[in-house]
């Protein structure tokens, strides 16, 4: 379990660094994809239980330091998303196309909902997505399209990211 959490957190941190430095080059209308979210969903969905939420919390907390968000913002969102994905563990067979697309899209919507909850609780300090503005829908579509190749790329890393229990 510790190995899975450590490797997942490290991979999620690398995703954050890549997103903040390199992904401006592949932005669509200024919107970058969130591959960290896709990795987190995959890790949580495959492992189930605590590994995903723990990695989500740790990587989200680190992300708060390099973002202008209040401390705990990304930690909460990533923990909430990974906990939700963990609950789905074993519910559906993870194919190569449809489920990744559905998880990528719904994960982004879940992120917007989590940000919305924080906005309701803490008010103006929190930035949130607007349902009528394009960034949310561009990011959702972008993540949905990237989810199948990202999930395929993650498969060879199972031995590092997935616990014995998750691999069974």
């Amino acid at each position, binding site marked *: 379990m510790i190995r899975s959490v450590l490797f997942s957190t490290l991979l999620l*941190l690398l995703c*954050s*660094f*890549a*997103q*903040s*430095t*390199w992904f*401006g*080059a592949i932005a669509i*209308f*200024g*919107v*970058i994809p*969130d591959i*960290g979210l896709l990795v987190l969903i995959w890790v949580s969905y495959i492992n189930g239980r605590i590994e995903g939420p723990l990695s989500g919390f740790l990587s989200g907390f*680190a*992300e*708060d*330091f*390099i*973002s*202008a*968000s209040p*401390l705990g913002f*990304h930690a909460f969102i990533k923990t909430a998303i990974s906990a939700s994905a963990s609950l789905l563990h074993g519910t559906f067979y993870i194919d190569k196309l449809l489920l990744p697309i559905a998880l990528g899209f719904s994960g982004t919507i879940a992120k917007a909902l989590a*940000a919305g909850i924080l906005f309701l609780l803490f008010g*103006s*300090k929190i*930035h*949130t*997505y607007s349902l009528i503005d394009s*960034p949310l829908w561009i*990011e959702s579509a972008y993540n949905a399209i990237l989810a199948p190749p990202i999930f395929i790329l993650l498969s060879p890393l199972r031995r590092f990211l997935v616990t014995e229990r998750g691999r069974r």
Partner: protein
Amino acid sequence: MPESLGLSILGFFQRGFAAVGGFVSDSVTSISELRKLRANYQEVTSKLERFTNIERGLADLREENKRLKEQLGYSKDIVYRRIAARIIAKDPENLYSTITIDKGVGDGIRKNMAVIAFQEGLEGLVGRVVEVGRGTSKIVPLYDSKSFVASRLASGTRTEGLVGGLGAPGDPLLMRFVKKRTKDEVQFGDLVVTTGFDSTYPADVAVGRIRKVRELEYQTSIDIELDPVMDFSRIEYVFVIRPEGPQEDTR
């Protein structure tokens, strides 16, 4: 304090990622750059000749300006030091609009310092420093929805207002609380600059150009939409403005 420490540690890795990205992109673009450089060299040489002539005139004007200021009693100005920095990262997600630069507390940068950049010969406001780490700093750009700057029209009525962002780099800026009676005097394309009233931003730094005037019957003020003078997607280098305190005008 914990946020500065976190930024110092994680900023180190961000710098590494930015350096790798910069190396790859520089290598790819260097061939086409060479061709452009040759054309630019010719252009710059002819410009240099023109500027040499202008500089001679400028020296006279500076001298005259100094004399006039002395006569008016404005001989003491706040002198600003500019700390050059490179943008190495942006916010890892789309909700917030942080910009990270490669200079930190060791380079003299402090929280709430103003950040400017030069684009197409114009000095424009970029934002302000919100967090300083050892070798990196976080900037909140002007277009952020939580960013506010006291501003005024650069010419004519010098009408004042409060400029804020709408959240995305492509969105217009919004100048609020502008007196309604000045509605007929504002014109499309007029430049809006900082007032310098707050302690963060120096005066007369360009903010945006008037794009549209919004007027609602029940409001006592008008809102003015501005096009930012900076194209935020193209900024690579910025200057952090550090006030050095009142000094004798030696320009």
